[in-house]
């Protein structure tokens, strides 16, 4: 069973303080959606509002076409996995999973069947009579997920469920969650501040910042065509380079931009684009820059710090006017700090942002 989720003009206010402002979002049945954003952006609050743990100040929430924002949490048909797992400490794994079913009067043999199936799926059937304090972090995590699965909910809500696991376990659990989603086909909403989790798990990512949704899109859309400067800077590692513009003119085929430190650059942004040069900036990902071969000309960059990551090398350097620029090079690149390199630009990959942070479309 899986259901669509519809949020219409949802706001959350605490007195004069607005935490979420006019959020509208529709999630298809079976979709895996990740709410991604920095801490304090309201993503967890939004999830808790869907769960019914927080009031909705205005707007409506529907699950499977049924309006739920007036219902108590237990009647909304959703299950939640908490960051702390929130297992009942005095109950065994079996009792933890059965509790919710007992509350709605599911027959005993049915409860037993579902608990057994979920435990097998999650490979925790050998732990079924233990109490949570006798389990490792990863095992508790599985129990928390199992407790959600047995309810056969219309949607799963995950509130940063991986943040208490160590790095290796986090990676493995991420894969298992993806498999779980593929097998159950349920609607899932997953809150995180970790972009890797978002990129790997999501069908669609909802990027949130300062009370609002910045962009909704597939991981690749978000990465390749960030709608705002915030999204561009939040996604991707190392962070995108931003350079201020000094002039925008009509060029040969598109806009010709005068960029601090780079000089005049011909781009493919349509020449009829209306954009004010004041406050505008050019965004370039480090991986879209490359080091010119011996003898070729390019933009001179003085390497200050060289980070060798094995498969690639990150060069943090300074341009002629003092602006900073990060370039990604091959893992075997023989760059040394202090050297002056020639950097090659790829104008097709540029991102152009207006003063209000909005991206100018049409470059690619």
């Amino acid at each position, binding site marked *: 069973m899986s259901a669509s989720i519809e949020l219409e003009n949802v706001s959350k206010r605490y007195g004069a303080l607005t935490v979420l402002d006019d959020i509208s979002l529709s999630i298809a049945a079976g979709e895996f959606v990740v709410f991604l954003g920095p801490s304090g952006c309201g993503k967890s609050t939004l999830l808790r509002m869907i*769960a019914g743990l927080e009031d909705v100040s205005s707007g409506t929430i529907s699950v499977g076409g049924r309006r739920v924002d007036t219902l108590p949490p*237990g009647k909304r048909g*959703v299950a939640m996995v*908490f960051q702390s797992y929130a297992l009942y*400490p005095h109950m065994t794994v079996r009792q933890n999973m059965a509790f919710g079913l007992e509350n*709605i009067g599911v027959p005993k043999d049915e409860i037993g069947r579902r608990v057994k199936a979920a435990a097998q799926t999650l490979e925790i059937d050998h732990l079924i009579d233990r109490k949570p304090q006798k389990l490792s972090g990863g095992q508790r995590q599985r129990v928390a997920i199992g*407790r959600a699965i047995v309810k056969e909910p219309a949607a799963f809500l995950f509130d940063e469920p991986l943040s208490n696991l160590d790095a290796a376990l986090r990676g493995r659990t991420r894969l298992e969650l993806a498999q779980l989603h593929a097998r159950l086909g349920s609607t899932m909403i997953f809150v995180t501040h970790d972009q890797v989790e978002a990129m790997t798990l999501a069908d669609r990512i909802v990027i949130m910042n300062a009370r609002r949704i910045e962009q909704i899109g597939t991981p690749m859309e978000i990465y390749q065509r960030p709608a705002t400067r915030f999204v561009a800077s939040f996604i991707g590692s190392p962070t995108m380079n931003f350079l201020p513009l000094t002039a925008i003119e009509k060029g040969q085929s598109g806009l010709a931009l005068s960029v601090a430190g780079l000089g005049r650059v011909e781009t493919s942004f349509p020449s009829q684009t209306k954009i004010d040069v004041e406050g505008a900036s050019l965004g370039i990902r480090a991986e879209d820059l490359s080091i010119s071969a011996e003898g070729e000309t390019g933009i001179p960059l003085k390497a200050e710090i060289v980070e060798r990551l094995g498969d690639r090398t990150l060069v943090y350097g300074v341009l002629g006017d003092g602006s900073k620029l990060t370039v990604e090079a091959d893992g075997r690149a023989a760059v040394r700090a202090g050297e002056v390199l020639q950097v090659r630009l790829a104008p097709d990959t540029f991102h152009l942002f207006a003063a209000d942070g909005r991206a100018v479309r049409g470059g690619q």
Partner: protein
Amino acid sequence: MREPEVTYKPESLTASRPLLWGAAVLSLIMMAPVAWLVGLSIKSNQDLMMGTDSVFRFPYTLVNYLNILHSSQVFGWLLNSVIVATGHTLGVLVLSSLAGYGFARLEFPFRRTVFVIVLFGLAVPEQAVIIARHQMFSWLNLHNTYLGLMLPGFSSAFGVFLMTQFFRAIPKDIDEAALLDNASQFRIFWKIMLPLTLPAQATLGIFTFLGAWNDYWWPLISATRKEMYTLTIGIASSQTNFAQSEGLGFLAAQAVFASLPAIIVYLIFQRHIVTAVSGGAVK
């Protein structure tokens, strides 16, 4: 090269040996009166009539303890104490758990105001209410009844305060998970919260039990009939015929006997009592 002399050990940071010796000397003062009491209790009254320094000489006897067995009064008082202290404790546990959950976890109109008023109750000494209370219990004919002996304890704010603290310490996620599990407010309390506070219940329960067992003021005023005396009052009443050198041994044996329940409870539940004392009072 000479080996450096070791003059410093890390554990000497927090306590030192002379202090410990001081504590050992004080512990002798602590124990001497009790040893004296036990000594008196195992001497026959005839020996003691000759002079109490006979405690330091043979023969010793258990005759005084045997005499307690023949005095049915003491067992009646013991029974009264058990009934009153148990009822008092159960009442406090039920009321404090409910109220503590309400104050710590639920929102209702005037919650803060009511909580502050209840906290003020902690500052009201028994003496300030005892005269009016005595009069009320006279109107209701509750004097010399078990109920009359238990009831005043139910109004104590200490347990409510303690349980509120304990409920607050449980992570909110647990209740929220239960809400999503479709549990009713009472079911969350009964199936999730209450089991989680079992250690706290034990602490509060033992503490309350000892307090009720040792209570002197209220039973002194309320229980005026000898058969309704609690052990505390009963032993006090036999003290008043404390004629010098007469029956000293028997009186001492009675005191030892009467202190046993509290001492046994203390030995078994020492840790809980310490928690209640240091946790409840500092905060």
